């Protein structure tokens, strides 16, 4: 159960990142390919302020967000007058610089040794992770509500106008460059905040968490879900991270022999889905014109179906585990304990696949009960 809560917390972080990217790219047309840079800067700043400077959770969060705000303002001023390719290259370069500095500036980040332990804001025994999970739900829900309101506001329409035709938008009486810079900084702050909030989840930070695959995972989710729809980020992350990283990798009743192929199979299906969506529905699964209320209605229906399906899968998984346990007992093998499901065993296998090098995925290695 602790692992499920941990996975769902990471899912919420991904939703938040995709929502921030939705405002940047879906509404404003800024192709930020340095998501992991802003997220990682927030996370590592949180680690440095908490571990090296021994600041409180709130102080560390505020200072981490301030660091990301300053960095994003500088990047914004430098790159937002460039065309899409320029912004893309500059933001990738920024994330690479952040990753490099984390390795080289050992006096601050501890380099490849890693930085920890990051503390939760409060510890209430076994309920700590659950409380933090509900806190993350509140943060991401607030971000989603803000996005929904932004879509219906004049400001949201101004952002779309700037994305579609900046020259005409410049004659509407607003400084388009200032508007772009402001919203770029605000959304990067959201990414940095989510990074800072990821730090206690991971507890121990290492440089190999700051890898481009985090950026790509967020982009894939957003493009799949619908980059222009206010709920596209949520739908995309639930399809990619939710179904594959949580449901299938953790609960699908696959044998240990097949389970090692699941991460690669996941990448294959991601790619297939992405190509299919880009070919047949370039706007993503959610059409920009589809009202959010209709999507929410369909979502509730889908969750009910999913829960029913999940129950059946779990029941089937339990019966498979019992059968396996009975068989191993007879043959005398001690490779897996009676409580371990085959899929979990496969996920925990070290170096199973390339995507496990990704910071968030790697952080899934369950370390739920570290001594504080």
């Amino acid at each position, binding site marked *: 159960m602790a692992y499920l809560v941990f996975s769902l917390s990471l899912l919420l972080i991904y939703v938040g990142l995709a929502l921030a990217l939705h405002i940047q790219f879906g509404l404003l047309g800024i192709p930020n390919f340095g998501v992991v840079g802003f997220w990682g800067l927030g996370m590592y700043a949180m680690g440095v302020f908490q571990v090296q400077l021994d600041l409180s959770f709130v102080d560390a969060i505020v200072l981490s967000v301030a660091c990301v705000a300053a960095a994003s303002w500088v990047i914004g001023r430098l790159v937002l007058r460039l065309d899409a390719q320029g912004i893309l290259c500059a933001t990738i370069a920024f994330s690479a610089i952040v990753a490099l500095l984390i390795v080289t500036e050992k006096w601050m980040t501890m380099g490849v040794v890693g930085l920890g332990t990051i503390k939760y804001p409060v510890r209430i025994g076994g309920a700590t992770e659950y409380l933090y999970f509900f806190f993350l739900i509140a943060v991401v829900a607030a971000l989603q509500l803000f996005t929904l309101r932004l879509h219906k506001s*004049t400001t949201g*329409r*101004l952002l*779309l*106008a700037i994305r*579609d*035709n900046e*020259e*005409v*938008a*410049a*004659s*509407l*009486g*607003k*400084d*388009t460059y200032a508007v772009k810079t402001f919203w770029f900084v605000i959304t990067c702050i959201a990414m940095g905040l989510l990074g800072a909030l990821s730090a206690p989840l991971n507890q121990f930070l290492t440089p190999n968490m700051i890898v481009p695959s985090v950026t790509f995972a967020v982009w894939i989710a957003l493009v799949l879900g619908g980059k222009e729809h206010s709920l596209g980020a949520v739908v995309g992350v639930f399809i990619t991270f939710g179904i594959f990283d949580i449901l299938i990798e953790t609960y699908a009743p696959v044998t240990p022999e097949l389970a090692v192929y699941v991460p690669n199979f996941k990448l294959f299906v991601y790619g297939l889905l992405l190509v299919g969506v880009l070919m047949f529905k370039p706007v993503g699964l959610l059409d*920009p014109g589809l009202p959010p209320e209709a999507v929410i209605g369909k979502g509730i229906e889908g969750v009910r179906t999913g829960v029913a399906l999940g129950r059946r899968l779990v029941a089937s998984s339990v019966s498979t585990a019992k059968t396996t346990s009975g068989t191993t007992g007879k043959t005398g093998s001690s490779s897996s304990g009676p409580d371990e499901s085959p899929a979990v065993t496969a996920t925990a296998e070290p170096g199973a696949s390339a995507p496990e090098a990704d910071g968030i995925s790697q952080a899934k290695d369950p370390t739920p009960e570290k001594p504080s």
Partner: protein
Amino acid sequence: MLEVSNLGSGYGEVQVLYDLDFDIGNEVFAVLGANGAGKTTLLKTLAKLLPVRTGRMGWRGNDVTAVPPYELTAMGVAYVPQEGNVFPRLSVAENLSLGALVGTRPREERLDEIYALFPRLAERKDQAAGSLSGGEGQMLAVGRALMQEPEIILLDEPSAGLAPLYVDVLFETIAEARRTKGVTIVLAEQNAVKTLEIADRVLVLSLGRILMLKDAKQLSMKELMQAYHI
């Protein structure tokens, strides 16, 4: 109202306009000329979307040569480009609402006035602007400019690519907007005949320089044909 002296402008290293001197009062001021004469460049420069390279621009006695476009818009200058002048994925009502980002009167009040002036837009207010016909799109662009409560509207070839019937309707609407709102209109056009029907003064450009600046009533078609090298 708007004064220009020794104005020069262009794109990159290419100079398009040379030493333009004129001023615009409360009138319909037409800018005519053959293709490549510099009409669009002049309007973009007046809207400050292109930098003033030489000379000076004044607005109501103030020097606005270095003022950015958004400040000029707030001062009362609206610009309607020739193409791509609406936001295609936004609805008609949303396009018009964006015009209300400047100005002081309530948005709804301004919208009602625009719908009264352009009943066709009222019928299609929830429709995506990208699905409008060319003529309706031009009406929407002019409507959005009027939403800005401007003192002067810079219209760049509004009749380009429109069917003759739509051209008539469009020019009638421009004349109506001038009558009811009292707004100054700077109209860059290829359609000289229709333009002369509503213009007070005419500036004829040739290769980026002023060929003539006259009252519309004093301009003969012969002079105009010479200007167009016909």
